[in-house]
């Protein structure tokens, strides 16, 4: 991508060809010149869209009616595609379909630059882009879906009518979406299972000898996998060409700011180390710990042991609330010794992993405490585990009993159970916060156990503090000091960037 100053150029012929289908696999990068203003605007708006997708993905089942409605509204507001028109020559009010597709194309590639640098950024970006793609593909007309497949060389073999008949019962019983009629009417494709992992994982498809049998209508999952793999490879390649891009002074501040924006507070700051004493933990667990950590702590006290998943989730949380490495070692050691582990064994087997958590071993990564999203979505607990999110992973009956023991009012419990039924786990936890702290409405939007702790301590310290403590992403202050020496044009650009980054900040604080 080449960037020069403010001229726009259009290569109409190849563009109309490229944008003649509403959906892109983003294989070819844009080959035109765009202005810095467009560069900034496109990137920010797409980021807002991806952020929305992230939030919706936690609160609603993907592709449920509510999810689709809300995402449509947001796409419309941001002037991205929201309704692929079969015939896009009709001029619409506002940007044309063509212009929206161009924006989609360009903004995707800009964000690649910002999000290719670390494993975490890549993972986040890929996840949201895949979800966006899923939503859009789902929205296409059948004819458009076929067209998309052919354009992108996804050729899988269909099975013969005889084979289909022989497998009919198995096909019908492998998914609620299939009836005898569906099977007869549609073509079934034989796809290697490695290309259809989502379907395999959820057992939504018939699997035999390493091949899944997919009806045409389900081909979307395959497409998604393909999309994900391509994007992953592309990001790795993009990362290599990053130094060249970063050397452009106009782009570096913006790209840096974009990539910091999504992360927000990760509660790994060392400001409050040593402010908590070990004696306080028991009482704190009842007063200020979110339910997940309270539960883990209790089981640790009762069993004098915790398995790996629980040690990670709880250990990192404790680090986040301010336990130092020495305190942590003492804490875990004294508890495990009461159980079946002797001091020697602890030092050999468990101490290493605690030091590892604090970044003192191995590749020395200073691990950050898990966010709610991570706790809810990854590493579900199994037999003998006590970690996870109780609102997500516990039996509603048992959860109800536990809340009763913790003296939550009956009406409060009902509200919480309702939220859980709607899969709003973080809201349920927030409600738990409100009920246990006697607060009408929490002044924050819960997304992290350590955030729960901080907010709880604030409330208990007296006075609801409206000013929220957020670690503001780095403002590009170093770059604005370069401004005096640069040309007036460059100075004006930095001003734009600074304004826009402020706008980004406030957007993400409200989220």
């Amino acid at each position: 991508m080449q960037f020069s100053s403010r001229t726009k150029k259009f290569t109409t012929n190849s563009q109309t060809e490229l944008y003649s289908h509403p959906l892109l696999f983003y294989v070819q990068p844009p080959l035109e010149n765009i202005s810095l203003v467009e560069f900034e605007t496109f990137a920010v708006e797409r980021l807002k869209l991806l952020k929305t997708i992230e939030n919706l993905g936690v609160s609603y089942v993907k592709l449920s009616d509510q999810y689709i409605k809300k995402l449509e509204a947001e796409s419309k507001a941001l002037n991205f595609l929201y309704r692929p028109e079969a015939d896009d020559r009709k001029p619409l009010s506002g940007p044309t379909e063509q212009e929206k597709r161009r924006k989609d194309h360009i903004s995707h590639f800009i964000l690649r630059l910002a999000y290719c640098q670390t494993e975490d950024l890549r993972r986040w970006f890929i996840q949201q882009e895949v979800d966006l793609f899923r939503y859009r593909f789902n929205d296409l007309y059948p004819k458009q879906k076929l067209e998309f497949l052919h354009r992108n060389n996804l050729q899988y073999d269909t099975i013969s009518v005889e084979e289909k008949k022989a497998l009919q019962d198995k096909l019908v019983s492998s998914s609620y979406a299939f009836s005898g009629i569906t099977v007869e009417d549609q073509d079934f494709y034989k796809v290697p299972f490695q290309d259809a992992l989502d379907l395999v994982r959820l057992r939504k498809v018939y699997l035999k000898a390493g091949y899944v049998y997919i009806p045409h209508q389900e081909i979307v999952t395959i497409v998604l996998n393909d999309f994900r793999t391509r994007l992953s490879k592309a990001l790795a390649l993009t990362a290599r060409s990053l130094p060249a891009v970063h050397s452009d002074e106009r782009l570096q501040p913006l790209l840096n700011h974009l990539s910091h924006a999504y992360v927000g507070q990760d509660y790994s700051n060392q400001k409050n180390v040593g402010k908590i004493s070990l004696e306080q933990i028991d009482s704190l667990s009842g007063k200020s710990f979110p339910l997940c950590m309270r539960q883990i702590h209790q089981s640790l006290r009762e069993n004098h042991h915790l398995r790996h998943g629980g040690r990670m989730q709880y250990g990192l949380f404790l680090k986040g609330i301010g336990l130092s490495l020495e305190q942590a070692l003492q804490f875990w050691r004294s508890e495990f010794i009461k159980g079946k582990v002797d001091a020697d064994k602890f030092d050999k087997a468990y101490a290493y992993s605690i030091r590892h958590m604090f970044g003192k071993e191995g590749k020395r990564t200073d691990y950050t405490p898990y966010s709610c999203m991570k706790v809810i979505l990854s590493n579900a607990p199994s037999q003998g585990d006590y970690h996870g999110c109780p609102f997500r992973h516990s039996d509603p009956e048992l959860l109800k009993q536990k809340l009763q023991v913790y003296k939550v009012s009956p009406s409060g419990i009902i509200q919480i159970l309702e939220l859980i039924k709607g899969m709003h786990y973080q809201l349920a936890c927030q409600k738990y916060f409100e009920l246990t702290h006697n607060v009408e409405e929490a002044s924050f939007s819960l997304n992290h156990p350590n955030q729960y702790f901080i907010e709880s301590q604030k409330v208990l310290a007296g006075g609801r503090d409206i000013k929220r403590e957020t670690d503001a992403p780095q403002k590009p202050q170093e770059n604005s000091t370069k401004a005096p020496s640069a040309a007036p044009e460059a100075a004006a650009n930095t001003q734009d960037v600074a304004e826009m980054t402020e706008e980004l900040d406030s957007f993400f604080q409200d989220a």
Partner: protein
Amino acid sequence: MPASDYDSACLPDILPLYYRRLFPFSQYYRWLNYGGVQKNYFQNREFSFTLKDDIYVRYQSFTTQNELEKEMQKMNPYKIDIGAIYSHRPNQHNTVKSGTFQALEKELVFDIDMTDYDDVRSCCSAAEICPKCWTLMTIAIRVLDRALRDDFGFQHLLWVYSGRRGVHCWVCDEAARKLSVAARSAVAEYLSLVKGGDETMKKVVLSDPIHPFIRESLVVVERYFPLYALQDQDILGRKESVDKHLHVRKQLQQDFQNEKKPENRWNLLKDQAKRKQATSKKGQHFEKEIMLQYCYPRLDVNVSKGVNHLLKSPFSVHPKTGRISVPIDLKELETFDPFAVPTISMICEELDRPRTVEEEDKSEETIDKENEKDAAESRKIRDYKRTSLAKYVKCFDQFLDVMARSWKGELLRKSDLQKDF
């Protein structure tokens, strides 16, 4: 031979003997070299050793079988783990630019551990096992072996007894070794039916339609359920399990007063379920869910997910029990007895047994045939054959023979490709 003959304190003395005369190095190398089809496959494989006093060393790697033997005989590891094949030799990983040293391939593995069933077995808990609950492992092997072969198309599966309370499965097909993390986790999830921790009462939830995989698994479970669950575990007789898992209505509890035989109680329960199903959609698959909750294999997804995950090696010794991690012959699965698996002390003792007349004659013959070979070398080859380890090494050999046919094909293909310009 009673297991009480084994004492972990004797390990420092008998491990050297085990590694010098009994460990099947040539078969082991034959396995991990995979026919030499891929360059540096063996050289880039990570091993980890647990040495005396719990010293743990990772990133061990070896260039030849000979080097592997020498090192193991020098270090006498208490435990051996096998890891992934990396992009570079693991013992040189510190010299590699950070970020470029990566785990590339590894067998797809499964670890079934008896402690994961503690909430549904009444005979034992934690590290204990007994013939009654061992059936759970038999069921697990049957269900998973079928699924991995029929559903996923894998062919080269090595089932190994872990030495104490579980079994491992090594899926050695080339396609399996090349699977990504996402693919491994998808396979493990496909195979998982029992979900939830201590806080979950109902760990198996089935809904219509019943997937063919679940149907096939139920066929296996149903074969063992009456003997294992109704009789041996007595789930319908013991008050705790009846109350905890079976949500048995008062009416049924009364009926149970009059009917003590487990099979009949089970029939009563099924009848009640059928009646409920006729009226409401809930509880559609009540009996199936119970059978699965009590019997269906419970695997640890995390073990199977990671390409770089280290798993106990076959023929490794279990320090607590002394038992050797031996391959399990599926043809004799029903009679497999974990308590009959040889311990290291047992086989070392067997080595010292005076040779019988027959053995003497046989060894005379073979020494004549193998005159060129080093006498010590050939004696070593035959040593394990004199012990109870022999039949397990034979089982391993048979597994390797089958796999070797596929390597041959691969090598031919590759050499053909090279000849074509």
